[in-house]
């Protein structure tokens, strides 16, 4: 597909020029989920089966209370049954000798919390499916409640900062690392500020899903829940990468690699200051946050150093 000498660019990975979505859809202005959802079929092609569940993506992708706002095949599963329903669909296609790319697309509430068991099970069975999480760090569709990927200190509607409360008391569950540790054909992190990297990973995901389980974790800021301006989302994605808050890496057959190594990371305060869900954090909180980010990055760095 890519034969040019120069580094391939995002468009080189496109299988579809056409956007399979309707022009106007029921997502918020500045929503990273929307851009992610529109981007995925461009690389994976439109012959995919989307499997999802209730959440921010549901109204558009799965026709919650309406019809779907796109021209792809989809199955609207329960939050508890995304990876498992996809398993059934994929196994049936395999049984009948059909090659199809089955793509789970859910928020973090499903993959990190209520749908984690089937996700982990499907990964362990090495099902031939691609599971993509758009991580907006909470239950944004139901009103910005905390999920287990909500970061340390973040103020949400169920971990509000107040006279006694300081936001979420525990750090986020590192889902991509957990799935990589379980063993999968391919695991990667990606975000919209680094589209070439994202596209390359999606293309690889499609290829690797012929061999086994693929998991991609997308960092996807939420304008409403994080209390940011509608034109800030991409900048926040970029800052998350530059501070090593969200390092871009991949693990192919258990071999880890940083795909965008940040040599001199920016202090985490620069990321925190952009997001109002952190606005109550004081200097010591930010120092603690920095420690957490450094520790997590050190783990990934060590994994990448392994032969």
């Amino acid at each position, binding site marked *: 597909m890519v034969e040019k000498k120069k580094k391939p660019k995002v468009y080189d990975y496109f299988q579809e020029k056409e956007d399979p979505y309707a022009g106007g859809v029921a997502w918020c202005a500045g929503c990273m989920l929307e851009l992610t959802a529109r981007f995925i079929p461009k690389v994976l092609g*439109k*012959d*995919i*089966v989307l*499997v999802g569940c209730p959440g921010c993506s549901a109204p558009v992708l*799965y*026709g*919650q*209370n*309406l019809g*779907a706002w*796109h*021209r*792809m*095949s*989809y*199955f*609207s*599963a*329960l939050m*508890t*049954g995304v*990876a*498992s*329903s*996809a*398993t*059934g*669909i994929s*196994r*049936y*296609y*395999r*049984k*009948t000798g*059909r090659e*199809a*790319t089955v793509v789970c697309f859910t928020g973090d509430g499903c993959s990190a919390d209520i749908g984690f*068991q*089937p996700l*982990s*099970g499907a990964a*362990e*069975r090495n099902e031939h499916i691609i599971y993509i999480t758009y991580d907006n760090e909470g239950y944004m569709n139901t009103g910005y409640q905390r999920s287990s990927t909500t970061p340390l200190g973040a103020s949400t509607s169920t971990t509000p900062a107040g006279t006694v409360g300081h936001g979420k008391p525990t750090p986020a569950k590192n889902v991509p690392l957990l799935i990589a540790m379980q063993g999968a054909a391919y695991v990667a992190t990606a975000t919209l500020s680094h589209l070439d990297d994202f596209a390359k990973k999606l293309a690889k995901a499609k290829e690797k899903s012929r061999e086994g389980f693929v998991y991609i974790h997308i960092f996807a800021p939420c304008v409403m829940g994080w209390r940011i301006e509608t034109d800030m989302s991409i900048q926040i994605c970029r800052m998350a990468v530059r501070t090593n808050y969200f390092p871009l890496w991949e693990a192919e057959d258990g071999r880890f690699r940083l795909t965008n190594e940040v040599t001199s990371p920016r202090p985490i305060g620069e990321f925190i200051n952009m997001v109002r869900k952190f606005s109550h954090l004081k200097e010591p909180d930010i120092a603690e946050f920095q420690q957490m980010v450094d520790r997590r990055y050190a783990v990934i760095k060590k994994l990448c150093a392994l032969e």
Partner: protein
Amino acid sequence: MIAQRGKVKVITGNSAAAYGAMLCRPDVATSYPITPMSEVAEQLSSFRANGLMETEMVEVEGENSAMNVVAGASIAGGRTFTATSSWGLSFMYDAVQHAAGFRAPIVMVIANRESPGILAVSGGQQDIISVRDTGWIQIIVEECQEILDTVIMAYRLAEDHNILLPVMVNYDGFYLSYMTTAVEIPEQADVDNFLAPLKKQPARQMLEPGVALGCGTHGIELGFVELRYRQCAAMERAATKLDEIDCDFGEYFGRSYGGQIDEYRTDDADIIIVASGGAVGTARVVIDAKREEGIKVGLIKLRLFRPFPRRRLAAALKGKKAIGVIDRSVDFGWNCGPMYMELRALTPEIGIVPMLSYIDGLANLDITVPHIARVVDEVHAAAKGKSYQEVTWIPLEE
């Protein structure tokens, strides 16, 4: 009889269920072990490992996934099978309703066991009751041959294009799941032929990659109401459809079970005992003995619980002088047996006669010959005008 005589094997009820499933060649089957059903999963895996079937077996990490996997495979167009029991069924409750909502014709066997309300690794039918309003067809069987045969019939029912509803085939956990009897295993070619009419139907809608068609159960306002109405209408049609399939099966294999209900010596009976599952076998013995004593008693085996066989029951019960119902579960809130409670709803059709509820056989306790003899005596006395107790917990009032 059209079919060849099959080989007779001495096998358990669980094995009979697994053989039934294997013969129907499901595309995808799932398994997650739970007592007293685990053997079904083991048997299917063994069939697969020995090349006896080509089913994709998915060893899931919990019952919730067991149901979601078959739901996904079903909506993609596959024939599916799974099995569970008790709180395995509770753990898949959301998926059980979801599957029925999008009309996935799944067949699931359930080795009935007490519900987890009070921890009990023992038989009972509380699990049937806990899912009666999920939109699944529920059939309850009496013995091992009937388990195998009913699994085959269940596919004809579930996948009928006028039905398209999932079916639960229920058999007593512990009693039937582990009971070893002679079971005739039909020939594969005969089962293929019996299921062949399903292939001649209009194709149902399936999930296809690249086709702009989705599936879920989203409906709004009138759309939702219409989907619900169609679901209920299909459920209503399932009752008589089961009778037809049972007749077909009888003509084909030489065995039939009465469809919705099985009546035993009811024609000239004054009083009727209603029971379900393995207890029916014991009840037949009691009915014969009581007939010898001169009591004109008949027996109705409730095979179909959802949809409730109201028309056939009303016809069978009309004019009878008293009715006793034996339940292996309880109805919270009505404080009686659930099947008894539903039978009482037939009063406008059958008239006001004494109806007595008996709760027996909870937590693996035996429903014995003396227990049922007592039921017959009390129902007989009530028919003669003697005052009676409405609800009796037999093991506590022996």
